[in-house]
């Protein structure tokens, strides 16, 4: 990471700490915003958060490792999550996943070479009445067919 990038990230984290307050209760919201913007929370970001909240960096890491939606390793620019829980499973989740895997040339859990997509399974999205469901970043899509799912991926920048 270049020094300029580091400074920018430090400033960003500082403003987040100002927004949510420099106490431990703000930790998850701060991490959430960093995750949203950068798709991962780097070691440097973890150290900065820890420093500003006055806790040990390992405390930050322990929280990140607990939650499914937070990660410390980089992922693709767009995160695709396919619901794997039973209602979506019965409505054709595996067809969806196979089509996506074919189209992107990766297996579930992997990231495309151009770093555009990471495809993952997720547990119940709470859209069981309109499955199979899939989320691309923070948007959700319902009643998908394999064809429609692939079409949606094509529209992502």
């Amino acid at each position, binding site marked *: 990471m270049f020094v300029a990038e580091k400074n920018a990230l430090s400033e960003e984290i500082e403003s987040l700490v100002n927004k949510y307050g420099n106490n431990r209760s703000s930790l*998850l*919201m701060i*991490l959430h915003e960093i995750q949203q913007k950068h798709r991962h929370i780097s070691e440097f970001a973890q150290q900065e958060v820890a420093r500003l909240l006055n806790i040990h960096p390992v405390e930050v890491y322990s*929280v990140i490792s607990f*939650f499914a939606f937070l990660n410390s390793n980089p992922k693709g620019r767009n995160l695709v999550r396919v619901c794997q*829980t*039973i209602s979506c499973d019965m409505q054709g989740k595996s067809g969806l996943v196979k089509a996506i895997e074919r189209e992107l040339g990766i297996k579930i859990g992997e990231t495309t070479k151009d770093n555009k997509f990471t495809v993952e399974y997720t547990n119940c999205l709470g859209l*069981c009445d*309109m499955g199979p469901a899939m989320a691309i970043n923070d948007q959700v899509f*319902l009643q998908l067919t394999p064809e429609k799912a692939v079409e949606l991926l094509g529209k992502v920048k």
Partner: protein
Amino acid sequence: METIKKKRTGPVIFSEYKRGDAIKKALSMTREDILFELKDSKLKGRGGAGFPTSTKWMLTAAAKADKKFLVCNADEGEPGTFKDRVLLMEFPELVFDGMVVGGYTIGAQKGIVYLRGEYEYLLKPLEDYLEVMRKDNLLGKNILGKEDFNFDIEIFLGSGAYVCGEETALIESLEGHRGEPRNRPPYPINTGYLGRPTSVNNVETLAAVSHIVIRGGIWFAKFGSDKSTGSKLFSVSGDCEKPGVYELPWGIKISELLKIVEAKNTKAVQIGGASGHCVPKSQFNRTLAYEDVPTGGSIMVFNESRDMLHVLKNFMEFFVDESCGQCTPCRIGNVKLLEGVEMIEKGEFTFAHINKLKDLGRTMQLASKCGLGQSSPNPFISILENFNDEIFNAGNGGRNGK
């Protein structure tokens, strides 16, 4: 999100309600009067555990502290449950008004909505809605001119952890820690968020409170059965023509519900989500109520074509994924149960081993620290016992003859 708003009607929750009415009415009453109305209503927590709301609020109101909190548990993670999504999307007024009433009753200054990360798309519309409430003085300082009643609501976003629906895990995560459940007691009503008395209530419970305040506890108690008063929102999914959220009185028979949602050739119904019980066809005359088959509202329908072992495997994979790993019975037990399911799938099992695993399941029910591990063996035990013919005897010990 590309959904169409349906016009919903129902006896209680989906009956007519005007924004702010419950707050106005509540502020004209004393705190004790509200608690008495709730007591008359016999409202029980709608998250699934069914603890009487009036008792919870009475204890929180009686606790002495400089600050108190009211938390709305919108971490709806149970597979097959989506009623809170509908409530928050289409009826935010019921939920938020219920929170203000709760804040007034227990003497809290701050309400927190713990919204699950999967519902992030609801965050913006809900925050906009709260802003409108602030403008109309339904939130903020001296609400509707009531002196010294200050209450505001904040939305906190979860990050994809099923266990955070457990109230102490939820509080841990609010405080910026891993979402690992605490020992109870002490209960959150005494030692909750930041060590202060905290009442954690389900979204649907709060929505019901808004109606109870307006129309009274006696009115509410007229619906449903004696022990399960009022109505319930059922999230129906799976093999039926009309999946969706239904408001029905407690005490309805499973077979009646299946008729309403137009389910055909039904073999089994999973009630209460992955951690609930699987009810076979022979028991469809049982009723949905706290005294018979209790549920947080998740109803998943399986027809004759479904392989119950596959269903069970999906549930056990879910629990292995979502166990927080803090206590041994849950962390290791769920993995062992999943291994058992895989053995059956491959046809490489002994009945002696499966029976041992059932015993392990019963041990988990007793020894796990929180509701997750206490209830995760439920599908393992109920599916293997209710569908033993299909799973063990239909072929040569293989699954379903395959």
